[in-house]
């Protein structure tokens, strides 16, 4: 039961993240140029986080044995290895842009 809840919540997270990304992209027109770059960086960070969540779902599916994915561990680990710092870097860059402005 917990496994299904975890997978379902992760998929819901993905969907909500996509919706918030759409709102962020829509909000760009109300912002100034520098704020637009900040928003762009945040959206790219969210996109990396979305990739992380997709890898998570695949990992969970393999981990919980829903599907026999032999490489779920590799996917999840690679995602955590690459996407996590990328998300952090994007947010850091946006903070620096705000600081510069």
């Amino acid at each position: 039961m917990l496994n299904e809840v975890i997978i379902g919540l992760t998929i819901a997270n993905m969907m909500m993240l996509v919706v918030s990304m759409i709102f962020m992209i829509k909000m760009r027109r109300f912002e100034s140029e520098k704020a637009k770059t900040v928003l762009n960086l945040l959206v790219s960070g969210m996109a990396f986080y979305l990739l992380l969540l997709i890898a998570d779902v695949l990992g969970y599916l393999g981990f919980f044995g829903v599907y026999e994915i032999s490489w779920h561990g590799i996917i999840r680990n690679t995602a955590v290895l690459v996407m996590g710092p990328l998300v952090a870097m994007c947010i850091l860059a946006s903070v620096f842009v705000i600081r510069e402005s």
Partner: protein
Amino acid sequence: MGLSSILIFQGFFTVILFIAIIFLWTGLGNEKYNVKSRKMLLIMLFLAIPFLGRAFGFMDSYMKEMMFAVVLLQFIIISLMMMYGLMLYERLRKARVDELEGIVNTKVPIKDDINREIILPEIMRLGRVRSSISNETRAVEKLKKEHLSLEQKANTIKLKVKESLNELGKKDIALRKRERELNKKEGIAESGIKKAIAGREMIEKRQNELNEMAARLKERGTMLEDKEDRLEEMKDDLNDISKGIEKERNVIEQRWNKANADREEIKRSRENVENAMADLRREKADVEARIRRLEVEKNEFVPVKEFVMKQKEELGNRVNELRRKELEIKAFEREIMKRNAKLKKQEADIEKKTSKVEAREKSLKEIEMQVDDEQDALDEQKDDIEDRMAEIKKESEGLEARKIETEKIQERLKSIERELKEKMDKVDIEEESLVDERRNMQKERERMAKKEMEMNKQVFSRIEGKSNAQ
């Protein structure tokens, strides 16, 4: 160092980065920055907690619970982000709408000029472009419909032609069959005739043979008659001799029996020959009847042959007609091809126009972007102006206080002025009185001078009188 240890380090590295960002963000707290969606960033910073959970993923004992906690935290943070994003977007949109309404409702004469000179012609032009595009699309749709109807007509004509060709083919096949059958029947009739001729010849041969046989039989008959005569003579001789030769009588009787048997055999053979002759006559009659029937059939097939010939001619005519129709269809197809080419040209023109329109739209978008940039610049200026306004407000508050003070001072000054005016009035009155006094004084002086003059004149006249008297 395995991948798992790198993962652990990487997870902690991410968390450290997030912590650094949080510190930087808190450091920025009091500074002024112009990002309307800064709270989104603040909410995103909360993602540090799930990353922290992920970093402790090496603890296998609480794997599932940790996963659940991380996912739940993610869910809360992302739902918060989504809700705040939605709210902020709505708020900013409303603010923008209000601003636009404000811009629209401002009574600046240049706004009307912009509307009249720039926006209205552009709208008119776009309307014209839209109407032309819609007209062209309608024309294209009409042409497409016409093309479709022509294609349908051509297809129906093709189908009809195919059907008629099939029918003609079927008819041709049926006629060929009939022709074959007739040829077969003709062949059969010819073979029947040949057979009949051969039969006739055979019958004639057999008749000849039978005649020969009949002649032979006649000869035999005559021979038998001769023999009978001889026998009778011999009978007579025997009768003559019978009396004496009874022994020979049996032999003769036997011979007689034999002769009777021969006679019966001959009779039988004669009957057989007669039967064969009857059969042959019947066969002859049958063959003759067949020949007659065949001739009748042949006579009957003559109109069929004519009919077949006519149908062949008709087929030829129809084939010619079909060829003509094919030529017409080909001409029609050429026309369709030409129309297709025209349609393609028109489509290409429309595509060009649409590309032009797209280019114009792009330019408009660029203008919009520029306007947005200008709007951003204006927003920035607005923010600056707001800041300045705040400063000005502060200053104006100070100025108001000063104003009140100055008003008080002014009131005081006014009262002083009034006093001064009163004093001035008084001074003026005094001045006027002084002037009057001066005038009076002058008059008195003049009078005094006149008096002095008179006095002097009197004195001089007295002096002169005295001198004259002396």
